[in-house]
């Protein structure tokens, strides 16, 4: 075999391997839309239980994302701009929720938030119930999605030259003001992308939520519930409707990525 024909064979093998994986990833979702898409779209209007489950999912995922952004952004800044002892411990704390099985995360949360625990009991004493409430859903979502936001935010802040902050400081800004006026706007797109990923992760969570708050049912729990109670036929519209909801962050992320690329290209051509 000549070098050229050997290269051609290698290219064909790579193309087949790539196509197989892409088909494996695409076919189930396409089948789901094909088989349940219409019923799912109808269900969004007709099925009150599905509607309220999706509304609950959107509201709790949004709340969880807002908390992740408010608490995670300062943490990401701190981890990016400061060196300190015990940094590896902080890193491990942030990595762990992404590595453990989600029902395990749910069990761990239940352990500290249920009425049997000191924290759960204290919260209950002031009238705050976590387990089997929207707060429980938010807690489960936050646990599994906040590390994703912090990781994206760290990357976004690290891409901002710290000397911008230095310049802002010499121009009269306090550290906090420089962060607000310079670093956050410059990292804004990356932070927003991180928030969208975090929202998508939160809204698709099942394992931790089902342990901590089976009721009220979010969309993922409802789809599981329909499947175990009534079988595939009944679960299909719910699953398809959830898929349609998941397309929203996908589109937003693509749009953010495209704008980022065009902006970088614009800067390059301006420099040239």
């Amino acid at each position, binding site marked *: 075999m000549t070098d050229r024909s050997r290269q051609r064979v290698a290219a064909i093998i790579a193309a087949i391997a790539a196509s197989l994986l892409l088909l494996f990833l695409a076919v189930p979702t396409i089948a789901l839309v094909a088989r349940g898409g219409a019923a799912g779209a109808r269900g969004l209007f007709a099925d009150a239980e599905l509607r309220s489950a999706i509304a609950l999912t959107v509201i709790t995922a949004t709340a969880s994302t807002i908390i992740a952004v408010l608490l995670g952004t300062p943490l990401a800044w701190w981890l990016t701009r400061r060196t300190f002892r015990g940094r590896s411990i902080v890193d491990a704390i942030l990595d762990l929720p992404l590595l453990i099985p989600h029902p395990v995360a749910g069990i761990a949360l239940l352990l500290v938030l249920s009425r049997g625990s000191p924290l759960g009991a204290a919260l209950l004493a002031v009238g705050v119930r976590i387990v089997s409430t929207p707060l429980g859903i938010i807690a489960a979502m936050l646990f599994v999605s906040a590390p994703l936001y912090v990781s994206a935010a760290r990357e976004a802040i690290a891409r901002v*030259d710290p*000397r911008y902050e230095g310049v802002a*400081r*010499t*121009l009269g*800004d*306090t550290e906090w003001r420089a962060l607000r006026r310079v670093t956050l706007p410059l990292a804004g797109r990356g932070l927003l992308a991180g928030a969208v990923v975090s929202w998508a992760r939160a809204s698709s969570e099942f394992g931790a939520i089902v342990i901590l708050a089976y009721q009220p049912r979010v969309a993922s729990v409802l789809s599981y519930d329909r499947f175990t109670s009534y079988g595939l036929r009944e679960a299909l519209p719910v699953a398809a409707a959830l898929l349609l909801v998941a397309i929203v962050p996908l589109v937003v992320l693509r749009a953010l990525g495209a704008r980022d690329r065009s902006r970088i290209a614009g800067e390059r051509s301006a420099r040239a």
Partner: protein
Amino acid sequence: MTITLRDVTLRQGTFLLDRASLDVAAGAYGVVLGAAGSGKTTLLETVAGIRAPDGGTVHLGGADVTTVAPERRGVAMVYQQSLLFPHLDVSRNVAYGAKSSAAVDDAVAWTGIERLLSRFVTTLSGGEQQLVALARALSSEPRVLLLDEPFAALDPPRRAAMRRMIRALQRERGITVLHVTHDVTEAALLADSLAVLDAGRVLQHGAATALFARPASARVAELLGAENVLAGSATMRDGMVELRTGALVIHALPPDGEALAGEVHAVIGADEITLSREPKESSARNAFTARVVAISGAGALVRVELDVSGTPLVAVVTAGAARELALATGSAVHAAFKATAVRIC
């Protein structure tokens, strides 16, 4: 406002800014000269307060500001890469740290950037960016202006124009300037006081004229651009220094009129060496026959590398003189310099 650094020490990974000291008088133009990686930017950021030193003190206007936040130091900094805020247009960049709109107008007028105000910073040329960065610094009405290689990205005409602009600013407004650069010419043109920084250490600091006239060491002389730095052993004879370096004996005046002996360095400016076809009757105490090793330079000045009995010397002559001498590689010439042209350090 005076700038005083005393024994400023800062470790940064493997780099160490080692007990750096320097002084710039109020309203004067201070220059720190050093090669890339010598710690110039770190030194400047320490004055700005962006980096906190591990040891030593920074005084501005007599007050100890070592632990004072950058925003309360009354300094402004211009980096080589301008670092304009990319999310703001030019006018917002200039107004960023301004205390009044009058200060903005003044800074814009000084730098002549009126026509750029509505532009986005990513559409500016390198020279325009530096002007905007300077305007942004000026509009915050600093008492100390810190410049980190501000002209490095500019072409020669713009560089000269901006040099004049900053010099005029410093003289007319009484702003104290601390400017770091690797460019000896720039340092020579601008500096009232000069510090030579090498591998994190200030080798010498003081009045610029004093440093150029009397470099404290061979390394300082080298960094100040002296072409001929020769090591040798000195002895005194008839009140003059006789320095033996290789096969050469060089005559020099003793520094400060004091006798000296032992291992020293002689520094001879390349422009102090005169060349001629025939041995000249002159007052020059040092006259040798040399062989031309290389000739370079396309401008008004020609650099001539010589071999004098095994010792390399560099002379600089005008292009006209080079033609008159019919200099060619391998040809023999007579090289001479006065004893007063030799600086011993």
